[in-house]
């Protein structure tokens, strides 16, 4: 039981994100750029491994298992490999550059001032670019936040470690990895709004989340103009016969309407 009233059935940081979607939005945004963006010379697996290692050092059960499961998936390894990294990464068959970065992440976890210039030099000599060092420090710092957020509010988590592995890999196998990997808050705020008329059939916690997370927003100007032009064309061609176009008037009006609905439901469109 968490110390505050979070929706039931959402473990770890997910319950907190549903409690306060306004802050969750930016925490997710940061994690998305830092951990998942493919425009990065560190692989997703390496970045998730840093996150897992830092969460292990902070001894945050949810953090190290949720991200350990993802790291395991990307690195195509087993849980023992991840556990051995936690126990002694220096003895493991990973690149020397990654070892140097893990050592920097470890220092950051103890405190920003614990990072020594020699560690940075070592990493650079082993081929680490400045951006990789930057991202390592920020990933470590980000998890120092998330771990504390999760543990400081006493959230609950599934104690079965295999659960965190399965939820990543079984999703992949069924080809619905995106549905599992993107967190529930994101899913609910993007998809559930369209199911509003069917709220009665949804589980209670999802209704609470949907209500808390769905904030309609103004569409952007380009989309709005496109939608209005298509919609107007639809109406005009219904009354004024235009060759080829008139038979599609209903479809055009429908497209305009759908574009506007999407534009208001999704935050950045």
């Amino acid at each position, binding site marked *: 039981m968490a*110390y*505050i*009233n979070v929706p039931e059935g959402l473990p770890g940081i997910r319950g*907190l994100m549903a*409690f*306060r979607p*306004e*802050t969750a939005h*930016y*925490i997710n*945004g*940061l994690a998305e*750029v*830092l951990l998942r*963006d493919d425009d990065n010379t560190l692989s997703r697996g390496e970045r998730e491994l840093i996150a897992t290692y830092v969460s292990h050092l*902070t*001894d*945050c059960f949810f953090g190290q298992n949720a991200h350990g499961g993802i790291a395991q998936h990307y690195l195509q390894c087993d849980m023992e490999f991840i556990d051995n990294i936690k126990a002694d990464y220096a003895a493991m068959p990973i690149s020397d550059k990654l070892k140097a970065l893990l050592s*920097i992440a470890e*220092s*950051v*976890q103890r*405190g*920003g*001032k614990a*990072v020594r*210039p020699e560690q*940075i030099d070592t990493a650079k000599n082993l081929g680490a670019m*400045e*951006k990789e*060092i*930057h*991202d390592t*420090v*920020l990933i*470590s*710092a*980000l998890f*120092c*936040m*998330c*771990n*504390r*957020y*999760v*543990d*400081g*509010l*006493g959230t609950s988590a599934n104690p079965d470690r295999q659960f965190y592995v399965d939820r990543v890999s079984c999703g992949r196998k069924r080809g619905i990895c995106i549905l599992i990997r993107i967190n529930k808050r994101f899913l609910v705020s993007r998809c559930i709004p369209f199911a509003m008329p069917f709220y009665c059939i949804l589980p209670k916690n999802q209704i609470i989340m949907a209500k808390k997370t769905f904030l309609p927003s103004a569409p952007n100007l380009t989309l709005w103009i496109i939608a209005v032009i298509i919609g107007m064309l639809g109406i005009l061609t219904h009354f004024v016969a235009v060759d080829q176009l008139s038979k599609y008037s209903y479809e055009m009006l429908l497209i305009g309407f759908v574009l506007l609905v999407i534009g208001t439901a999704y935050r950045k469109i």
Partner: protein
Amino acid sequence: MAHISLQDGVPGIRSLVLYRPDTGKPLYELAQVLLRADSPLSPGERELIAAYVSAQNECVFCSCSHAAAARYLYQDEEQTVDLVLADYQSAPISDKIKALLSIAGKVQADARTVSEADVALARSCGASDRDIHDTVLIAAAFCMFNRYVDGLGTSTPSDPDAYRLMGERMGSLGYVPPVQP
């Protein structure tokens, strides 16, 4: 000397945001919503928690700048900020803020030590779920910001006037990411 090539003359987190704006943007937006958006805690109280946690983390840049922002927001009672940073238990603040600062201190040191008793004490002083949530997240967020700023060895001004100006800007304008000059 910073550990990576940062722009000269730009201190603390601002140099990091200029270095990597796509992570800097959500960081600043998080600070803005956490420290300025609606909350049962006033912006001054939230800056106070930020300054206290940053002082515990010994991050000079963050503790000085957020203390300056708190002083700006406390207006006539700006000395409260220094009394809290010296010893919050004897400072002229409400029992609720004292209980919340104690939770923030535990989150900073080791979040697993925050107990039901700590939360119950805060509640008995009138703290709501949101007070507790915001306190924990502010403390946690500054454990991130402090490590980010110090872990990359960013420059830290030593002139108190520099922080006073930062405090005024943070107190009046909020958190606006710096742009490349």
